[in-house]
Structures are given as C-alpha cells and as structure tokens.
C-alpha cells in the first residue's frame, strides 16, 4: 500500500474512534433523559445539572462526527446532475472544493473556536444563574475539536482522491463502503 493511503488511513482513525464513542453516548443520553423524566415526575429530583448534561451530550454527538460521516460519504448531495459528470471530473471538483473552501473554513472555525473555548477557560465560565454543570470550557471546546476531527476526515478523503486520480488501478472511490469497513473490523478483531 502506498504511503499516501497509509497516511489517509491514519487520519481516518481518530474519526472512527470518536464516532464509536458518540454512538455509545446515544445510549448514555437515553439513560440520562430517562433518569431525568422518572426522577422529576416521581421523586422530585429534577436538577439543572441533569438538564445541562443532556444538552452537553447532545452537543458532543451532534458536532464531533462530521469527519466520520464524510469518510462514509453520508453527507447529503443534490445529485440530479451526477450522470452528466465524469467520475474524474467529480473527483477533481471534490478535491478543489476541499482545498479552497472546506479546509480554510475549518481552519477559521478552529481558530475562532479555540479563542472561544479559551476565553471560557480563562474566565472560568459556569452555568447561567450559577446552577448546573460548571466548567463551560469543556463543552465549548467541542467547537474547535469538531473542526479538527472534520479536518482529519477531509484530509483522509483528500489523499484518497489524490490516489484515485493518479492510480485509478489502486483505488476507485475515495470513500469507505460498508463492506470494506466491516471487513476491516473483522480482520482487526481476528488479529486481536
């Protein structure tokens, strides 16, 4: 396997890891909401901490898997004109869109997001009104972290597009498919 593909795979790894974690967070969120509903209704335990925890979890799930979704080509496209474009043209289009628009946007989002989270840390921001989860900088870090993880996924696809364009014999599609993914997982499981 050429080095480019190996780097692409390394870039994809954090995206996969975080996506699995976020999947588990869905279970955690379900549990937290159940605790909240039952507790408040029957045991009078409703608290700001629990409701803060709900949107904290939601925020992490919603923002941290953009890169993973892109690796799996899960982002919506309006593909009514796809048949009129050649495969190579689409790869070129994707390549330049990433380079000119997506990576700069993510860079800005990381930069401003970093300042945003840092400000919360320096000022020791807590919940509005003083009740709820403290340390708002943790959840605010989701914004720059989201940009970093997305960038990993985007760079991984970018490298694969590069390979698909220069060596179509090695790689046709820059995206991971269901089968390739589960094969990989199976082989990694059997090797463990």
């Amino acid at each position, binding site marked *: 396997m050429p080095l480019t593909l190996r780097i692409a795979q390394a870039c994809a790894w954090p995206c996969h890891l975080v*996506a*699995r974690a*976020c*999947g*588990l967070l*869905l*279970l955690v*969120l*379900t*549990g*937290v*909401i*159940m605790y*909240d*509903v039952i507790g408040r*209704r029957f045991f009078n335990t409703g608290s700001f901490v629990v409701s803060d925890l*709900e*949107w904290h979890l*939601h*925020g992490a*799930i*919603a*923002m941290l*898997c*953009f890169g*993973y*979704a892109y690796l*799996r080509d*899960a*982002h*919506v*496209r*309006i*593909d*009514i*004109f*796809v048949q009129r*474009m050649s495969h190579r043209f*689409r790869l070129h*289009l*994707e390549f330049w*869109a*990433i380079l*000119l*628009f*997506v990576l*700069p*946007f993510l860079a*800005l*989002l990381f930069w*401003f*997001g970093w*300042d*945003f989270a840092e400000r919360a840390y320096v000022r020791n921001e807590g919940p509005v009104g003083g009740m709820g989860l403290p340390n708002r900088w943790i*959840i*605010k870090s*989701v*914004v*720059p972290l*989201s940009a970093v993880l997305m960038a990993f996924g985007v760079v991984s696809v970018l490298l694969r597009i590069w390979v698909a364009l220069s060596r179509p014999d090695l790689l046709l599609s820059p995206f991971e498919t269901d089968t390739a993914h589960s094969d990989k997982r199976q082989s990694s499981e059997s090797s463990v």
Partner: protein
Amino acid sequence: MEVFIEILPGLMFLTLIAGLFSSLPVGFVLMGTTLIFGALALGLGEMRFAQVTLMPNRIFGGIIENPVLVAAPMFIFMGLVMERTRIAEDLLISLQKVLRVVPGGLALAVTLMGTILAAATGIIGASVVMLTVLALPTMLARGYAPSLAAGTVASAGTLGILIPPSVMLVFMGDLLTLNLAKLFVAAFVPGLCLAGIYLVYIVVQSILRPDSAPKAPPMSPDERAGILRESAVALALPLLIIVAVLGSIVGGFATPTEASGVGAFAALLLGLLRGRLSWRTLSGAMDGSVRTISMLFFIFVGATAFAYVFRHIGGEHFIVETARSFAISDWGLLAMMMIMVFIMGFFFDWIEITLIVLPIFAPIVQIMDLGDHVTRSDLIYWFAVLVAVNLQTSFLTPPFGFALFFLKGAAEGAVTMAQVYRGVIPFVLLQVAILGLLIWQPWIVLSLPEAVLR
C-alpha cells in the same frame, strides 16, 4: 458600488443555489458560499473582523446549547433501533395478514405502516426506500396494478415528515422559535387527515376496479394458527412506542425532548424483550444514527454560518423588500412563499429547505397579518404546518418529485417511471385538496393544540 452592495444578498443566495447543483455535499457548498461572501463583506466594509470571530458563539448557542434540539438525535436513534430490530418489518407483515380480507388490504397496510412508523426514518429518501424494498415486490407479486402500488408506497413514505414525532418538525420548531409540543399537536390532525384520505381513496379504488388491487387468497388453517397473537404483538409494540412518545408530550409528563428519550428507551426495551437486540444490531443502529445525525448537523453548521453572513450583508431587508415588491397583499406573500417551497421541493430534501430557506422566510412570516383569518400568535404554527404539507406534496409531484426517484431507484426496474407518475397523481391531487382545505379552514390545524394544551 452602492448597487453591488444592494444586490449582494441576492447574489449570495443565487450562488448557493447554483453551487448546490454541483453534487458536492450541501455543507461544503454552504461553507464555500459563506467564505466567498464573508470575504466580500469584509472587503466592502459591510462586516467587521470582530463580527466574523463571533461565529463559534452562534454555532454554540444555536446548535449545542439548545435543549430543544436534543430531540433530534434521540428520535433518529429511536427510529434506527426500530428498523434494525425489525419491529418495522414485523409491523408490515402483520398488517398485511390482518387486512387481507379488506379490499386493497395490502395497499392499506402500506399506508398504515407509513403512518405509524412516520418517525422511524425521518429522511424522505430513507423511508421511501424502506417501504419500497419491504412492500413493493409483494404488492406486484399479488397482482396489484404497478401504478397503484407505486403511488401508495411513495405517498405513505412521505407521511413521515408531517406526522409527529417528526425530526423535521423539531428543526422547524427550533428555527421559527415555536413551542415544539404545540407544533407536534398542530401537525397531528392534518397528518391523520392525509393518511385517512389515502385510505379512503385506496378502498374506493379497490372496489371500483377490483383487478387493480386483488384480494389475497384465503389463509390455510395452519397459517391461521397463532396469527392473532403474533399480529397483536407486532402491532402493539410500535403502537406502544408511539403512545409512549406522544402520550408523554400531550399528558404533560415530558417535553418533546424528554419524550424522544422515552421513545428511544422504549424502542431499546422492546427490541430487548423480543430478543432482537444483539450487540451487533445495537452497534449498527448507533453507527447509522451517528451518520444521520452528523449529516443533519453538518448542514446546520453550514447554514448557521451562511445565515450569519447573509444577515450581516442585509439579507433580511433584501428578502422582505423583494417579497414586498412582488406581492402586494399578505395573502400574496403567503402564496409566493408556498409556491417557492413547492418548487424547491423538486430539488431539495426537507433538510436543505428547513435549515436554509426557512430562516430566510422567517422575517416575512413575522410581518404577515391575515386579519381575522388567523390570529397573529397562531399564524406561525399554521404556516409551519402548511409548509410541511406543501413540501410533502412537492416531493410527490411529477416529473421532479423527490420521493419518486428514490422509489424508482429502490424498485430496481420493477415499475416504469410512467407507472410511478400515473400512480402518484391521484395522491398529489388529494394532497393539494387537503392543503387548500387547511389554508381555507385554519381551525383544522389550530383547534387541537388549543384544546389539549390548555
């Protein structure tokens, strides 16, 4: 230069629309348009750099620190658990068996399935594909007219965006700053009206033209054994989930956000009770949810950035002025927005329309006044439901209808496009009739929330 600044918002919007057709991910196009016009706005002095750096505040406040939106990931998770544990599939099979003596029984089963499982997928493409794969081959094998079969599947598959708990309504409620419980209840009656009128149409059609919807052969005795219990279980389970979700909202137990968690929990529990919730199934459902959730919120982030720049270059003013110059009366404004939503439904899924276009329309809706027809406070709920029904109609309308392409694709050559078009037209006409009725008689939308949420 002045003129250029005047038309900048219009240019930005047109660039976005043109870019969307490039088949790049929608979020990428939003980011690109935002970058180009953000830079222009900075260069022209329409925006200051300090304002640009506030973007994370918008994303944080709008998407993360937003208790209402917690419902979206949970409803998606609930739907995927129901799909992966095959609760949905069982439901269709049982409905088919129970309804086999009724004229058009199979078509009725598909419509009911679409109604009950409205929440299971949330995305038009996914629910139409699911119904097509599950039901279309059976209907054709039983000798149903291909056009009726296709029309039924397409229309039932699009019911999901309207009937609560619907992910689209969660986003609509958030973007138009509505009370989500009230919006859910408001959409309930129109959704049932549509489902009901579909059912009536299918029965009438099957009686008038029995060859287009043949009855199933009678059951053999060993088939009959145990069917009652089996169907009862398969029917009761999803109904239980729906009751748990809607009941906890209407009964005041829980906010829609919490109801979504209750729904996800109920789906997990039922999967477990039926012995279908292996770790493999669960992790499949989690993986699928994460992808759908990310897809939705990625566009949301892009749309937030887009709207931020759009507003700073005078987008709101531009939209209201443009609308005013085209339409003289407030009824004209409503008609214009409805037509625009309808046309956009040809090309875009509800995700793009709700997340990108609705915020742009919001200022127009805020200034609209229809006098005694609808009170100002209720108008925006009524409007949201109209948009939802309108979108659904649009997804079904030939030749572009979004749902039709998904159906054709998933059918793998079992039906021709002409058959799909022919089959769907009666349903589109029914939809338009209902839409007209809702516009004419707003109380159909507004009386249930009034009665329930007092």
